[in-house]
């Protein structure tokens, strides 16, 4: 069965490591008294059907400065992986190790309280995300400017429009400046100009060599931003390699392992938006590849 292990040593450049990680959830917590009695009399055997394996022997290492996309369909274990990296949950088996501070655009706005003013929420949320008072003081003007909410900063957050609320929450989160930046579905919120602002910010972080892990269903976007891609399926890591191949792998899975339908080749303008050249991506080794669509000629090399 799953058991916790001591971390194996890794190359110095690795800043996030997951080693044989398993995580199991109980699907039903409350039993009726009748069921509990039956369960007791049957020798208290574990009821397997009530368990859900969210992560099954998942291992990967992320090196400093890497931009990694974590992909998969709903329920594949992406968010659980992020929760284990951020420390909200602990693995049942295996081990997770991180270096430095991990934060970012995950559960944006969770630390906000509607009855506090914008100003107080900035300080409360900044503190929750691990910033010191000095760091928040220093970033305060930038946070307000990025959020673009003007005089509303001294108004209670419950009177904000939903867009303003999220802009302020995002703004605090992106100014936390962690060592490993986690991003979970950034683009589901905000109007288009704000989304563009967020994308531009993440782009500059990737360029500056920040370690970033992005969870998203927007495959076109992650293909542009990330060099490496991980694909999860029913709690298992099924692909770990260059991001464009990971995207193709996932799209192939969506179609039951058949060929990815022809997509028009990327225009030069589209290619220019990518942060990594084909060569840079091709340099990422394929570490895991379980099943999936047949290899293309380029991948077979």
């Amino acid at each position, binding site marked *: 069965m799953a058991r916790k292990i001591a971390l194996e040593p890794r190359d110095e450049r690795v800043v996030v490591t997951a080693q044989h990680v398993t995580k199991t959830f109980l699907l039903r917590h409350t039993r009726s008294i009748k069921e509990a009695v039956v369960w007791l009399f049957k020798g208290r055997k574990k009821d397997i059907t009530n368990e859900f394996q969210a992560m099954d022997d998942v291992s990967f290492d992320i090196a*400093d400065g890497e931009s990694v996309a974590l992909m998969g369909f709903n329920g594949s274990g992406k968010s659980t992986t992020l929760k284990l990296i951020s420390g909200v949950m602990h693995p049942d088996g295996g081990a997770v190790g991180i*270096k430095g501070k991990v934060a970012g655009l*995950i559960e944006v706005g969770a630390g906000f309280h509607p009855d506090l003013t914008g100003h107080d929420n900035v300080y409360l949320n900044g503190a929750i995300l691990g910033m010191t008072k000095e760091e928040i003081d220093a970033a305060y003007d930038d946070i307000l400017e990025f959020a673009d909410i003007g005089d509303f900063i001294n108004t209670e957050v419950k009177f904000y429009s939903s867009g303003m609320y999220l802009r302020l929450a995002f703004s605090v989160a992106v100014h936390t400046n962690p060592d490993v930046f986690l991003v979970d579905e950034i683009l589901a919120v905000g109007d288009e100009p704000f989304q563009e602002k967020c994308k531009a910010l993440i782009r500059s972080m990737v360029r500056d060599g920040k370690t970033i892990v992005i969870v998203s269903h927007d495959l076109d976007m992650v293909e542009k931003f990330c060099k490496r891609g991980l694909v999860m399926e029913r709690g298992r890591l099924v692909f770990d390699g260059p991001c464009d191949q990971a995207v193709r792998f996932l799209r192939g899975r969506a179609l039951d392992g058949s060929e990815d339908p022809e997509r028009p080749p990327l225009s030069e303008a589209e290619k220019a938006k990518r942060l990594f050249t084909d060569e840079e991506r091709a340099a990422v080794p394929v570490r895991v590849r379980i099943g999936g669509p047949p290899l293309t000629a380029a991948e077979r090399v």
Partner: protein
Amino acid sequence: MSSSSQSPTTRLEFHAPGQGRGLREVFTNRFLLKRIVNKEIQVRYRASVLGLVWSYIKPAIQFAVFFVAMGIFLGLNRGLPNYAIYMFSGIVVMNLFTEVFGNSARIIVGNGDLIKKIYLPRELFPVSSLWVAWIHFFPQVAILLVVDLLVGWHPTLMQILAFLVGFVIVSVFALALGLVFGTANVFFRDSENFVDLINMVVTWLSPVLYMWVLVANTLPHWAVVIYKLNPLTTAVELFHDAFWAPTVTSQVPYETWHVMPHLFSYWTPIALVVSFGLLLAGDLLFRHFEGKFAQEL
């Protein structure tokens, strides 16, 4: 990549994310604790005109009710000089205890939305309950002091020390129980009801409204020992010693009240050991189950 391989992050050691160091986290996260306390206070008194003044009004009303009912109707005033001060110095102990205990046992579940989404040292929540309760406690002590000074209170150093030690005992004991019941509450919401039950009877389990001598005269010896083992009994007696005993000018009959034998030499150290021992146990329990909070909430 070559430049980033020299970044300071890579030189750090791996650590397991979300593994707190228990109550020690409180000292390294003082700023966050302050913000959480600030939030609790603001949220509690939002849209309230009187705000913190309520923390003076509520105990004053409570005091008046007990004083009229117990002191005048039941005639306890005649039995004990300055009965009002006697009673109030016990009530402030109980108010501190019930507030810390009641709030810290609920605060984990109350902040469940945050706890299951973002990691932060969760001990900060029960400790913030303690801090908020202190903010409500000191106005009550201020009222007590004003009344004391009016009747000519002039304490010795020993009595000020008794107050401080009693204060530490109540705070630590309440926080310790809060950690235990707060942890239990994540898994079984019955815990909240136990907390309410305990808060309901706890005033009567210590010599707040009556004198401990009555218990000693009525109950068998072993029951009296258990009664005295309750750290709150010691804390209440320490408060009596600090705030009430110095105001009594006439001789109190021995059979009505006298200082609990060995209060300082024996029962106070025991209360401190029990409280801090329980705090250690509560901290260990909390840390043991903390990893499951996010998925259970």
